């Protein structure tokens, strides 16, 4: 499908796989200079292509470009030029990242914790980075992998994971509230 569709034509030689993998790396803290050097383009070329891909997604009423971008985003590590790029701070916690990609319950727990952190007025993505050494880009890359598996799950399995995530969200919400002096209505009882 993508081979004959003009929406997938590379822009200034930058393919959708390049663009998607580059965005995964940018979200991981890899600098735009490093990305451009690996792709062999100057920043103005990258930025024009980047704007072009954003426009393509906006002009695509069937969402096929953005769907494919999600797939490529999850495969950023396999990109021949960008796959091996690491942020200046290093690769993060490899063991936790591996667990995130293989243990669905761990992934759901961190999703719940992240939501609870935002609801407590904290930076949820930063909380995961600080406590588990997993960057936002790596987390989203794994999220895309789980999302692709989602369609093969039964309704019962999906409900089980959703309930688990919500239970963890509430558990972490309690923990964060305790750390921050409680919620505004904690002393209001029935």
């Amino acid at each position, binding site marked *: 499908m993508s081979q004959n569709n003009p929406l997938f034509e590379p822009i200034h030689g930058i393919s959708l796989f390049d663009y998607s993998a580059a965005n995964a790396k940018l979200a991981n803290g890899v600098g735009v200079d490093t990305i451009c050097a690996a792709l062999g383009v100057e920043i*103005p070329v990258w930025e024009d292509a*980047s704007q072009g891909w954003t426009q393509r997604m906006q*002009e695509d*009423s069937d969402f096929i470009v953005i769907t494919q971008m999600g797939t490529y985003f999850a495969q950023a590590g396999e990109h021949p030029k960008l796959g091996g790029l690491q942020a200046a701070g290093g690769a993060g916690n490899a063991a936790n990242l591996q667990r995130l990609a293989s243990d669905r319950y761990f992934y759901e727990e961190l999703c719940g914790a992240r939501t609870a952190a935002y609801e407590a*007025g904290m*930076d949820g993505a930063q909380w995961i980075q600080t406590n588990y050494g997993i960057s936002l880009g790596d987390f989203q890359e794994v999220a895309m992998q789980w999302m692709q598996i989602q369609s093969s799950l039964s309704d019962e399995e999906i409900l089980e994971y959703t309930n688990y995530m919500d239970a963890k969200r509430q558990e972490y*919400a309690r923990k964060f509230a305790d750390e921050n002096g409680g919620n505004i*209505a904690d002393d*209001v009882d029935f």
Partner: protein
Amino acid sequence: MGLFNRGQSQEDKLQTETIKSELAALESRLDNFLAKLNDRVDLLIAGFIAEAPAVMATDDRFGQAYYRFSSGIKGQATNMREKVREVMETQIEPAYSRYADILSAGTDAYRLVHDWRHRCAEKANDWEDQLQHRMDTATEQVERKDYEPIFQDMVNQYMQQCKSVHCTQCGDNLQIAQVYYHSAYVNCPSCNTQNIFEPGVIARDLEQNARKLAEQRSKHFMDAHEQKRAEEEELYQQMHTLQLKMSFQELQAKSGPLYTQLLALNQQRVAAEDEIPVQLDKYYRNIFDELNGLLPDLKEHHEKFFISLQNNYQRHDSKRSINL
């Protein structure tokens, strides 16, 4: 014999009174609980409105501090919502089940318990709706901005900045007249050297702010769209109420004064329903017309974007199926 006119026994009456008294006490506790939570909602919203401007004033260009702040406020509202749901699950529903399981359907006591549960659920739902409405109104108030001066100021600053960009080779002014939304190659008009022009943060944010301004200028169409939607819903409810008043014979015969009234209401409802997508279309068309005026160099993209968007909302356009 009184088989079909059996009155309540003394024992039944006593049981009903006992249940009534217990449920009234629980309902009163629910009322107090919701009222106390409302006091906290008042505090939360007052704090949100008072503190938001200071958070926004020192925020970065992505609004991350405000995002965290408003997420925290919404988190507190979620916490209160969950408290209400917990009370419904652990206090109201068990009380209902305790009696509903032993009382015979059709008895006064059963009706009493059933009505009580319905009333409590309504109170909880109304409280949640009211909370949502108040949070939405406060958020709208806090986030409201006049994008006319903001956008104009950004354009002025960008143009001013362009006047002082010079060629790295010969030093002549690059005479930049167009908007560059990101770094770009610009040839020097004097020596033809290719320069890399970095337009800065203002130019990068221009498109997003133009969109907000265009939405602001088109809001009256969205208001009209929502008004037509509400009008259609109201007329549909009126039709439903009228149908409940009509006899089976009137409905079957499709005649009579109430049926005529029903047809008139439906005619008005259909007219409102037809206007819903028309107003939505006007809203989006106006946004893109405004954008074409604000950022004319992106007109080709705007038109493709509009068609894509239009395909999507037309795909979800649906009408009620009503057979009178």
